[in-house]
């Protein structure tokens, strides 16, 4: 419904809310560069206006006067100065960008799946939400995201960050909210007919309220991810080869997550979400040293959500007391 005139005059902000330290940093950078912009634009505009009037043609046949002397100094100056300025701005911006790519240790791990045209979000506890993300204030929040179909982008203006959400791989976004409130969540990569409706809310709550939220009803709740993953592990017959008591048929998964794995061609990698996902979808790509490439692929048999549930389950597997070694 359209609001009456006085309604939207009252609610017409010129500046978005700020809900994190990084948002503050980005605003500072933005306004500083804006200052540079205003300085140079005003300088050029003023000079133009001044010259227009001061040197306005007085008679139809009048020509301009050519400059005398060495112009090289001026030319060099206005190359060097902008160069220094822009490189300084670059350095500042790069610092923030690199920080945005490095979530702090201990950040809460959320999972997000974007699909036309909704956001499916899962809390560390397993609680699920659609188009809404409730987070506790004062805690770093890390989102691991993928798409089920086209490229989307997860954008929270109040945190000043976004990251594209791409089918076939995981991308990451983190922020640390420091102000309680409700903020916009937008999809900011055009994704088809209902792109403008792929919106939601990020709700920052006091930590105690967040605990209550997690414990209570609301969101789409239901079985936790880990439990669903465990169920899949059995129904998809992963457990016929991957067993906690023997490594004869398949590499040990208990205690695997986070360890370094060696492959028969000499390469190694850390067992993280991307590695587990690849092993499920393309098991022949990296075969663990000493094993045969007999694991079948599950491409086409699992949805992105199910893959995430399996990853959560495998993440939860602690080293077995009998055989704690990872080969």
């Amino acid at each position, binding site marked *: 419904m*359209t*609001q009456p005139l006085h*309604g939207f005059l009252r609610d*017409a902000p*010129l*500046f978005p809310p700020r809900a994190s330290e990084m948002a503050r940093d*980005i605003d500072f950078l*933005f306004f500083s560069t804006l200052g*540079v*912009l205003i300085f140079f634009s005003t300088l*050029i*505009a003023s000079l*133009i206006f001044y*010259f*227009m009037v001061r*040197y*306005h043609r007085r008679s*139809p*046949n*009048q*020509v*301009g*006067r*050519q400059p005398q002397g060495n*112009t090289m100094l*001026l*030319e060099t100056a206005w*190359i060097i100065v*902008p*160069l220094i300025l*822009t*490189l300084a*701005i*670059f350095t500042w*911006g790069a*610092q*923030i960008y690199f920080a945005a790519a490095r979530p702090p240790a201990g950040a809460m791990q959320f999972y997000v799946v974007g699909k*036309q045209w909704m956001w499916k979000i899962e809390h560390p506890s397993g609680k699920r939400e659609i188009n809404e993300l409730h987070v506790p204030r004062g805690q770093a929040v890390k989102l691991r995201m993928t798409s089920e*179909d*086209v*490229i989307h*982008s997860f954008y929270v*203006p109040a945190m*000043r960050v*976004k990251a594209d959400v*791409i*089918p*076939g*791989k995981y991308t990451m976004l983190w922020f640390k909210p420091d102000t309680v409130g409700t903020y*916009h969540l*937008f999809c*900011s*990569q*055009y*994704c*088809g*007919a209902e*792109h*403008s*409706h792929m919106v939601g809310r990020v709700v920052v709550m006091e930590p105690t309220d967040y605990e209550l939220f997690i414990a209570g009803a609301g969101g789409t709740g239901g079985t936790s991810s880990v439990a669903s993953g465990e169920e899949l592990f059995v129904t998809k017959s992963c457990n016929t080869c991957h067993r906690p008591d023997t490594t004869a048929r398949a590499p040990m998964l208990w205690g695997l997550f986070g360890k370094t794995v060696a492959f028969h061609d000499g390469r190694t990698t850390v067992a993280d979400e991307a590695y587990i996902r690849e092993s499920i979808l393309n098991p022949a790509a990296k075969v663990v040293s000493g094993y045969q490439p007999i694991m079948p692929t599950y491409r086409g048999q699992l949805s992105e959500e199910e893959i995430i549930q399996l990853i959560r389950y495998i993440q939860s597997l602690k080293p077995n007391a009998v055989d704690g070694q990872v080969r």
Partner: protein
Amino acid sequence: MSTQTEFVIPVEEAPEPGDHYLNHTFGLASWLLTKDHKRIAILYLISISFFFVLGGLMAVLIRLELTTPEGDLVQPDIYNRLFTMHGVLMIFFFLIPAIPGVLGNFLIPLMIGAKDLAFPKINLLSWYIYVIGGLFTFYALVSGGVDTGWTFYAPLSTTFTSTHVMAVALGIFIAGFSSILTGLNFVVTIHRMRAPGMTWSRLPLFVWAHYATSIIQILGTPVIAITILLLAAERLFHVGIFDPKVGGDPVLFQHFFWFYSHPAVYIMILPSMGVVSELIAAFARKKVFGYHFVAFSSIAIAVLGFLVWAHHMFVAGISVYAAAVFSVLSMLVAIPSAIKVFNWTTTLYKGSISWETPMLYALGFIGLFTIGGLTGVMLATLGIDLHVHDTYFIVAHFHYIMVGGAIMGYMGGLHYWWPKITGKLYPKFWSTVSALIIFVGFNVTFFPQFILGYLGMPRRYHTYPAEFQVLNVMSSAGATVLGLGYLIPAIYLIWSMRYGKDASDNPWGAVGLEWETSSPPPVENFETPPVVTWEAYEYHESTAMHSLAPSSRGSYRVG
């Protein structure tokens, strides 16, 4: 004042009725089968204007829809087709061909003292190819259009849309060849067809700008061509180049796409910068300050422009180190543009500045391009782009460059050379008024969009939160003014072709080979081929000015 040079400019002199390129032959065939670069320029003028109007109508509908937060004017998928087609038509069928096709075609042979371009038949072919590409796209438009955005990202465009992607892609593919052939023609012409004495250092900056543009057209356009073929193959055969389910990479599409599309924006702005150099020189009656710096800055922009494409992909999951490299390079590419702005402004110092309409457009360009360009530096800044990428901040940025910059330059050039092209003068009152209306309308339209972008309003949104409405209404109001502003020149320029005062050879008292011949020029451009012995923009008091009296038109030798 006593040290100012005086020279005689027969501004009010009645021109001789003569045989020129417009009246030499008549009939539709003499136009559609012409090999005269001047007539081909007119053909381009008509066709690009058609697409500009079409693209503009879409913009009107978009802004109309966006006056209210709800999607109440058109359905979402119609809206998506509107902004897609607006982008496709404006970029590929207006901005890229406009200045090279109209002004470049008309003026480059004149400016270098040649009779025509190196390959006149290929020039005509370029126009036909452009028209055919346009027809395919027009067909796609009337059949319902495309809804992928002009950027056609995979996998949306390859797998998830059922609209006329192939027809539009084909139209763009074909039009690309027009761009390539024009670039090829200009490069060979500038290398091989310069009149005796017209050295590279004496070339008008307009020519330098088009040379740089042509380099980009030649090197970049084939890459979008192959990208479109890959897109088509993926769409038709589902082979998996961009499909992650079978091992492809959707982000690869973005790399291919932007490898052309970023240099493409320099195709759109460089010619306009060339125009501005000419306008500043003519209406300050001074050589452009730092001629060599301005000339080489065009080449620098062309080269550096190929090295920055991934600054469109900072949040697309590329490595942070790659992002840093592209950010630095994007900062570097801003420097040559800054060089131009500073040199143009300095040219005005101690100039003899006229307030004629073309000059108003040129000065408007400098101001608006400075703002647009500096917002580009902000976008190249990684930390800022995190927040404003894919928001209205980007939309405002590129419209400041393309409309506040490129189109203003085009309008200025069109007004400046109108007497040369048509032999007629346009009414000064209306041209001044419309220039001011356009300037005001433009800023009211697009400045609020910077604010909207920082607020977080994403682009390509059909509906939006209510708190964004005021700024959107402001923007739409500005768009109405801007549209009116463009309507007025359309009317008086056409009017002037019949009812305007006749123009002399050199109504502005400018220096340049194009002003050494009649308005309009004869078919072969010059009655006697020129021999050049003076530098570009020789308004210098110590140079004996070549007389512009008709009796001496037989000789262009200075002395």
